[in-house]
């Protein structure tokens, strides 16, 4: 089989798989265009009988989405920055050595992440109240998210550091660099892609974080989009089309950015070791 034929075949298979996998996304899009009860129709309708485009404008306006998205962005960036600063170094050390302390460290890191946010939020809330952190609610959420996601980041980035040959760092040391300098000049750039991927994953998670935000941020003007999304749900109402429209507006841009970025990151991961 020729190269191009093979490529076409692979692309076709990939498209089919993507179509299957992305079905929920598609469903989100069409639901946002459906009327209230149409989504419960049997047999299911794959295209809205009359597309309700105005839903989008309505949702954007009524919920002041711009502000929500801004808050989400602030929280996400804050968390990623904090995690990257704290977690990268930690991951590096845990990758560089191979001894009992590293084992203990890894073990603790995983253990600390075990409980779901819904169970962690009470003690954190209590603690934050006592030190007065709740007066800076977005900071409080950033700290909480950082604690929750850092183990994830550390474990992933550690694996990346494992792939950076020790000798390169040694060469830098001999070249007159301090440990600090070698870390920043050599090790970090070489682990850059892995760190970026992990940071982006964390960013997305923090962008959609919900449990901490809704408990700790009481001022609507500081709440992130995830909390805003929930405001379409009541005990006896769930405005699914609005929720989906809202979600569409908040998912699509991130997804687009990621598709663009990961292309560079994952496929650029070829500059491995030499000799």
């Amino acid at each position, binding site marked *: 089989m020729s190269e191009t034929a093979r490529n076409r075949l692979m692309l076709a298979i990939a498209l089919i798989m993507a179509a299957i996998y992305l079905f929920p996304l598609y469903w989100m899009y069409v639901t946002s265009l459906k009327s*209230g009860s149409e989504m419960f*129709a049997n047999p299911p309708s794959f295209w809205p009988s009359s597309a309700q485009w105005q839903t989008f404008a309505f949702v954007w306006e009524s919920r002041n989405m711009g502000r929500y998205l801004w808050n989400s962005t602030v929280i996400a960036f804050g968390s990623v920055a904090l995690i990257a600063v704290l977690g990268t170094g930690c991951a590096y050390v845990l990758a560089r050595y191979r001894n009992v302390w590293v084992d203990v460290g890894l073990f603790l890191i995983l253990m600390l992440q075990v409980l779901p946010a819904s169970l962690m939020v009470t003690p954190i809330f*209590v603690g934050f109240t006592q030190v007065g952190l709740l007066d800076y609610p977005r900071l409080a959420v950033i700290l909480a998210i950082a604690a929750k996601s850092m183990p994830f980041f550390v474990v992933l980035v550690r694996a990346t550091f494992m792939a950076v040959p020790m000798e390169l760092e040694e060469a830098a040391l001999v070249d007159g660099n301090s440990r600090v300098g070698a870390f920043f000049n050599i090790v970090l750039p070489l682990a850059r892609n892995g760190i970026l991927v992990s940071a982006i994953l964390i960013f997305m998670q923090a962008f959609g974080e919900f449990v901490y935000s809704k408990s700790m941020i009481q001022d*609507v003007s500081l709440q992130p989009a995830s909390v805003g999304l929930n*405001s379409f749900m009541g005990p*006896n109402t769930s405005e699914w089309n609005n929720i989906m429209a809202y979600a569409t507006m908040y998912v699509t841009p991130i997804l687009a950015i990621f598709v663009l970025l990961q292309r560079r990151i994952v496929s650029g991961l070829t500059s491995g070791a030499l000799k």
Partner: protein
Amino acid sequence: EDVKLTLWSLDRDIQPAPNLIKEFNAQKNGIQIEYRQIQFDDVVSEAMRAYSTGKAPDIIAIDNPNHAMFASRDAFLDLTDMIKTSTVIKPENYFPGPLKSATWDEKYYGVPKATNTIALYYNKDLFKAAGLDPNKPPQTWDELVETARKLNDPSENVYGIAFCAKANEEGTFQFLPWAQMGGSTYKTINGEGAVRALSIWKQLMDEKLTSPDTLTRSQWDSTATFNAGNAAMVISGPWEIDRMLTDAKFEWGTALLPVPQEGAQRSSAMGDYNWAIFSNSKHPEEAFKALEFFASKDATMYKDFGQLPARADLPVPPTGNAMKDAALATFLEQMKYAQPRGPSPEWPKISKAIQDAIQAALTGQMEPKAALDQAAEKIKSIEG
């Protein structure tokens, strides 16, 4: 300096709380209220967490079955004395059910905010198609089952009836009226009537007269299948009326909940929220003023927000839409029989016991009688 109050409720921007607060603040009477919206699932946990760390709001809107939990521990302020002297809030003006839910130990720990109940909606077009009289909805349980059978049409994807037996408060909310009509209460949940009620539910499930997803579907989603024409009847509340008017492409009617047999005692569920003031509020007087202001707006609540006031003294003015007015009349009638859940400070656990029984019976893992016996046992041990 204005007195600052905080108020938590689950109302969204088209619902009463935020709008009433806006109006209240606009009066500039020296009291300003700050509003926070909380999600249904979180009201109680947020409130507890805040209360135990001293961060509780002054006023909260609390779901009526949870009221007793706070009241019994004196987390809410005893309003009895203030109500006595109030010219706006008079206990006798309220439906007895809602008022009872705000009462603990003969004292008033809150004021009903709004109320609702459930009744039977039915699809008149399908009635006609099945050769049934669209103006004669089923009156008794047996009729209900019979009608459901006739309306059931799997080939057209139509179920006879939709309701909600989900394993959360909604399940209890829908089941309890049936049990009560059968002469039981939550304390005697394994009474004969309750067992019969559960058996009827099971029969509906077994004969596939209702979707098996009734077990896991919320009232809102169940009603949506009715709106979409996939169920011929549904048991639900007045909050659905507006959606039904826009979504349902057929003629529909409402009826009181069917009773076990002709002439039997009626009963219905009672939902919606009460206002309460936290006992550690620094400004109880001002907070009560706010409640009085809210109560003074009960008269236009249905008109403005589509919610029923818990008031027996206020007529609900006609809207001009015949279907809507007819439905409203049904619900107001049904409201008279509405009974609160509890009140009991342990209501969530009691409710859980009832849900477990419903689910165990409907999935066929236990006989209705045995399931309810077990629930009764649990409830007894919970109540101590």
